């Protein structure tokens, strides 16, 4: 019986589906579940939005409508500095980790070399180990090596923007390379061979064939790196210095000093930025998504999908 139901269900995707759709209690339970999930997700967000306009120093008490917290936000220089640092760190760490992560993905996916399995395993270590461990590692690393770099290379690095950016690069590479590798694995290697056969150099093959094919993966990896960098509190807190800190770390510090609805307004703006990023990524996926992988060689002589 169960098998029969499933086979009907899988076949009827394009039909009106009056046999396979849930009915009665099942339907009721499913829609309740959906509503609950949305409430769960969005109620806190809506509350946050509402209370960011509340004219009361107490975060959870409604005191009438005001835009004071947004004005205070606009006048608060440390916050604006931390936003600026956040954006700079995010852009730099995303740029570097996308290049390095894509290169790592290419190396692992396309070439066999001594120790490639070990490299493969080590590359994913930053994803597995806890943030706190990573943070302590980075802190230790910087405390040991900053003086060394200064004495050997004569470059003075203070804790702040540079150390934050390096730490973010360190954990973003793994994520970028996972996403890019997934895309590379799905790409037909013969396309690269065909390009080489058609007089393209290795670089031109990458530039004209491989990169366009893996572009959605690279874009996805970049967005992931951007989000991770903008989000990170734990690691950044350990490696940031007195002069420079990112927005999430700054907000975290504010909370410890006492919560005012200023945090609400900052959070709303961060939320708005995140939503904007998500919308952008969806738009990017939509434009690249229409270029799917090539249709399988069909035996039919009629064009398979004309006019899409």
């Amino acid at each position: 019986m169960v098998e029969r139901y499933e086979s009907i269900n899988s076949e009827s995707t394009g039909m009106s589906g009056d046999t396979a759709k849930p009915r009665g209690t099942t339907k009721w339970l499913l829609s309740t579940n959906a509503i609950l999930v949305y409430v769960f997700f969005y109620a806190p967000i809506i509350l946050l939005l509402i209370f960011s306009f509340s004219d009361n120093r107490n975060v959870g008490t409604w005191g009438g409508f005001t835009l004071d917290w947004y004005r205070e936000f606009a006048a608060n220089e440390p916050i604006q500095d931390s936003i600026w640092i956040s954006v700079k760190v995010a852009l730099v760490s995303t740029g570097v980790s996308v290049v390095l992560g894509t290169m790592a993905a290419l190396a692992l996916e396309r070439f066999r070399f001594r120790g490639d399995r070990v490299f493969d395993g080590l590359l994913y270590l930053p994803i597995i180990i806890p943030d706190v461990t990573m943070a302590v590692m980075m802190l230790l690393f910087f405390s040991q090596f900053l003086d060394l770099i200064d004495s050997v290379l004569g470059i003075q690095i203070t804790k702040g923007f540079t150390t934050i950016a390096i730490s973010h690069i360190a954990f973003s590479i793994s994520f970028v390379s996972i996403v890019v590798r997934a895309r590379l694995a799905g790409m037909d290697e013969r396309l690269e061979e065909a390009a080489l056969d058609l007089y393209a150099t290795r670089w031109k093959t990458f530039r004209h064939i491989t990169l366009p094919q893996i572009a959605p993966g690279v874009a996805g990896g970049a967005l992931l790196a951007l989000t991770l960098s903008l989000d990170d509190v734990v690691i950044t807190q350990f490696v940031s210095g007195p002069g420079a800190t990112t927005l999430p770390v700054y907000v975290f510090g504010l909370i410890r000093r006492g919560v005012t609805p200023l945090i609400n307004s900052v959070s709303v703006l961060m939320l708005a930025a995140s939503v904007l990023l998500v919308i952008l990524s969806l738009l990017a996926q939509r434009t690249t998504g229409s270029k799917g992988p090539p249709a399988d060689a069909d035996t039919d002589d009629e064009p398979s999908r004309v006019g899409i």
Partner: protein
Amino acid sequence: MNDNPAASDTTVTAVGLRGITKRFGDVVAVDNIDLDIGDGEFFALLGPSGCGKTTTLRMIAGLEFPTQGSLKIFDHEVGTLPPNKRPVNTVFQNYALFPHLDINDNVGFGLRMQRVKKAEIKTRVGEALEMVKLSNMGERKPDQLSGGQQQRIALARALVNRPKVLLLDEPLGALDLKLRVEMQSELKTLQRELGISFVFVTHDQEEALTMSDRIGIMDQGQLLQVDPPEAIYERPVNRFVADFIGQTNLLEGNVESSDVVCLLNGARIPLDTGLAVGSSVSVILRPERATIGSRREIEPGQSAVDGVIRSITYLGNAIVYRVGLDWMEIDVREENLPHETRHEPGEEVTVSWDHGAVAVVEGQG
């Protein structure tokens, strides 16, 4: 191998392999191959999957480098040159068209990489598309074309570069039968018009027989025989080739004297093997070369064995009888003609053939 015109001294050698070996770790994919492919020749590399034919083709293309040996294209050593520095182009299995480029850009890719002027690219791409009769498809993306059309575009994309040798890796494998037969004759015509060598990898023996000037048969990394289709079919060099090309009955026996072979059941057939007395041999009897009849005396100039009909396969234009001999079963194919008497299973029959209708190879299975 000596009597074929294409490899004679007067023609230019397009591709020359000497002692080419390719190892992948411990696996020997191609084992010490010598091969000359003439300019303007339609050459097929034929063999079962895993025999090394594709690896050989990829070495000519430059997608693999030989472990040992010399590989020359028009007398230039190219063994370790990358593919983009060789005057050859490849039609890939499943075509490998670039999905993000339209047909014009796909076909023009090789020219663009060679920095040919834009105007010239446009004309040459136009000509190439016309050649494969798909002139109006330039703006489309590969996934908007059918399998047959994609295959033609792959051909145009390779030929637009005017390669000296065109390599084809099972190019017709993904097409259905009717389209495949059509493309076979188109490829053959195209090759004659262009006058360049086509080196063609296939596991389909019929395709190799109908299209090629010469066929190289490979098995387990070795090149077993290189000959025109007729010679391959009529005079295979060993059991593998005999068995791989067409339907074959292999009757095993021993050389009794210089012109008699004694089959395993003791039947003696006159056959000049040229082999030493006592060597074990297999007599190659093609199903269509034998005739089947009621038990009778052997006519002069013929050999025969007695057997019983075990089963019958009706093919429409022919009937294949499976005949049980004392020690093995053989297939005999008779044309389906109205005046021929049909035989029934269980009937005792004599299978006979002209002396000249069989070939012989050394060894038994």
